[in-house]
């Protein structure tokens, strides 16, 4: 008996609380930049694809929904194709953590519903954005030893000029 009255009383009190319901989709909720929603591929500060097709995101993915193929152009590695099956993705963010280049990032967008499941398969052109995403300055090739157009051997951070192997000096 007391329990019932208490319940009714608590429910009555809710009349004076602030509303939790939001008129979505007219009003969008705030999501922090760290929210784990739709996955994108970003570009480095020079506007080149950041992804080097190292396959680490695919290996980290617990549901195995990332598939890609390495390609190479002028010494730069890039994904020939990159597909994510979002109908499997659990938005755990492991791929982002595994990525050595900050290429793959989760974004605060969750509005991805589709009527046809096949449409949840995103290809590289659906994933690749034109900016750097959350990490504006990082460029993997500036710290890696590979020579690419515009960055020769010895020009990465903390690199000495290439050795002249014909020099006789020790």
């Amino acid at each position, binding site marked *: 008996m007391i329990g019932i009255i208490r319940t009714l009383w608590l429910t009555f009190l809710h009349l004076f609380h602030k509303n939790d319901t939001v008129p979505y989709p007219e009003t969008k909720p705030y999501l922090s930049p760290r929210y784990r929603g739709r996955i994108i591929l970003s570009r480095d500060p020079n506007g080149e694809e950041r992804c080097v097709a190292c396959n680490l995101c695919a290996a980290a*993915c617990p549901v195995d*929904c990332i*598939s890609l193929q390495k390609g190479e152009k002028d010494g730069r590695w890039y994904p020939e194709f990159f*597909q994510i099956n979002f109908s499997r993705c659990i938005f755990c963010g492991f791929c982002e953590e595994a990525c050595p280049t900050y290429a793959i990032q989760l974004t605060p967008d969750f509005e991805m519903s589709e009527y046809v499941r*096949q449409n949840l398969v995103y290809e590289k052109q659906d994933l690749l954005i034109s900016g750097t995403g959350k990490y504006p300055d990082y460029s993997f090739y500036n710290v*890696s030893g590979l020579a690419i157009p515009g960055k020769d051997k010895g020009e990465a951070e903390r690199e000495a000029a290439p050795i002249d192997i014909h*020099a006789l000096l020790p």
Partner: protein
Amino acid sequence: MATIHIDGEPHETRDGENLLQAVLEAGVDLPYFCWHPELGSVGACRQCAVKQFNGPDDKRGRIVMACMTPATEGAIISVSDPEAKEFRGEVVEWLMTNHPHDCPVCEEGGECHLQDMTVMTGHRARRYRFEKRTHRNQDLGPFVKHEMNRCISCYRCVRFYRDYAGGQDLAAFASHNNMYFGRAESGTLESPFAGNLIEVCPTGVFTDKQFSKTYSRKWDMRGAPSVCAHCSVGCNTIVNERAGTVRRTINRYNDEVNRYFLCDRGRYGHGYANADTRIRVVGQLIDGVHHQVPSQAAISHFATFAEDGPVIGIGSARASLETNYALRSLVGAAQFSTGLAEPAHGLTLLAADILRTTPAHTPSLHDVEQCDAVFMLGEDALSTAPRLGLSMRQATRHASFLNADRNRIPRWMDASVRMMGQDFISPLMIATPAATGLDDCAVLTQHAAPDDLARLGFAVAHLIDEAAPAVPGLTEAESTVAGRIAEALLAADKPLVVSGTQLGSAALMQAAASIAAALMVRGKPAALSLVLPDANSMGVALMGGLSLDAVCDMARDGKVGTLIVAEADLTRQLAPERVEALLGQVRHFVLIDHSESPLIERAELVLPAAPITHSGGTMVNMEGRAQRFLPVAFPEGPVEVSWRWLRDFAESIGQDDRMAWQTLDDVVAAIARELTVFARIGEAAPSEQYMLESGHIRSQTARVSGRTAIRSHISVRDQPVPPMPDSPLSPTMEGTYSTSMPGALVPYYHAPGWNSEQSLNRFQQEIGGPMRGGYPGVRLVDAAEAVWSSAHYSTDLPETFAPRDGSILLLPESRIFGSEELSALAPAIAERAEPAVVRMAGDGPSEVTLTLDGIRHRLPVLRDDSLPPGLAFYPAHMTLRAFAAPVWVSLETAEALA
């Protein structure tokens, strides 16, 4: 046997081992870089440090390099000693100071020995804050990619390339931090074993350039054990696949055959399986044009052909035993051809015959390495069976090992053994028409025409055993050479004679057989090795069949209704006009093959066969060892393994009672039942039912990625993976895996903490010994029990070679890259193959016109003064497709024509 104590635990070790081997064999993890099980120790990297104590009372101990310290009875060492651990941690930290931040873009990543060892030592954070040294890379040709920044100066590359494989064009340059491992200048690596650098180098300096084009991480690929299809050595390989394409070939250890190394033809030859030349649809010739038809239609079409006269089957030395046997069953033994024209047919059968009747031992490659005198007679084994050539090179080191033993230097002490052994070289004697790639380690080379070489061989046999026929009319020079060879062979403990079919001469093989037999008579445990033209030549020879010439005769007499050709390219065996005649005289022509050949246009039915990467089967190598290969990729669309097509043919003509095979095991069992010589082929590998610890062995790693995405562009719905036909392996990541699996079933090497191929150490009973799970293949031909008598010596001695005016004896040159049929279709091999030239001695013309089979060919000439007069070399099967045996050709120089 010695007992050593590792961290307080007693372990048995073999005699003469070093501590590193002993520790690894005991199953303890100890990082190392410069030691290699086949190359020995040099102590260059300082990574394998352990603490050694003088006795139970010694509490201080001292740091030693495990790879440079013999494991002596009672030795007490500690791997986990804090000081030793700290030492190893510092070593790897130094090695890493200059290492680039490259793993994500490094082909070695995920199977990198340096990664593994860095993790093993526990080095995580970089403290070095100064500049890294950098290097420029070189273009090393189509096979090997170079990224010098990643080098840790372990010296393994040059030790393999120069010391082991005899290469000259890779060296160490500069000093200390600046060390550079490369060529004097950019250019293709000349050694045909350069591809092994990929596996020998513990880092990503040398990586696979072809693989990089369709790169995939090791953990992402399906693997399957395979056997190299590109020569008669039958090296064991692992083939990797992802998403339906074959990605790469790597070495699969077989302690008796190829052990740690492959040749580049074998490593890069698989390219044909992905090439555009693959046949992928069923074609039927309707009004002179091929139309794609359903498989069933083609099979019922065959049934109508079969009613139109006798069916003749042409098998092939590059097809599996199962395919040849299915064809033989379908058409009957009397209508089955080996797919070889004379002289190759007769020579191949003769080789099998010799090996079955010789009293000498037929050596495995590992046996070859143990021989202490080698006579190579009339065969350039380095180009016809490259891996055998590499083993023969190792045989020349035998004396230096004995010298080391005398001086009580352990054999693994590589630098000392080589340094002290410089003047102790076991004799390699080479008698060929021209210079070979092994001449640099030979003590004697003799260049002559095939007949003269055979005479030399018979003379050697006579000198060893008087009962062997004497050779009349030898020159004094020849007698001296024969004497030297006989003397060297008799002085040896384990002499080896190598010959083969290259020069199309039965006399040469007979001479080699006579020498081996004579040595046996003199009480020497001689070995005889005969090189055959193709991967399964021995299998076909043991099966037997008609020669193509006999088939041509039958066709001429109108005795052929339908000709079925299984995986053979007749244009490589018969001259163009003979092919024309044959095809003109048969009513129907059915071709089953996986790659296009010039004949495809003419076939009424073309059925797509599965290449060995897509099918399972057995091949018999030159020593008579049956070895199983398993499919790594699913056959695409209507593609079927050839024997299934033939089985369906049999069914369509009501012969299914004899050929109602469902699985590979059924065919294997049928062969073993019917042909006694193959009675044991079932033992080549476990059957399809094989389970390891109650499950099938998985052919994908536990960390294969993209399972729910890799097909999602086709359909987002997950499809179960079908079982892999004819394989005991599970096609997915589900299944069992252990280091004690049978050697014939290893899909990839992995052990906890060991992601690179160095994890092989964990799979062996002892380092360099047999696999824990056994199965090195099964030897079908063994030293004959038949008693040898001098009546068995061949008395068929050829006459002295006499040059002819106006014509020249054109000999078939065997090229490592370009001569073999399937590998020549691989883009990488085609890129590496050099253009065909006529090699001739003397200051001759730059171009000649040869008349061969009535056709005039204008060909460039390369001067080669190692050839005797009257002889010329031209690559077999290259521009002159059917050219594979010596032939007299009339010769006109371009100048003479003008």
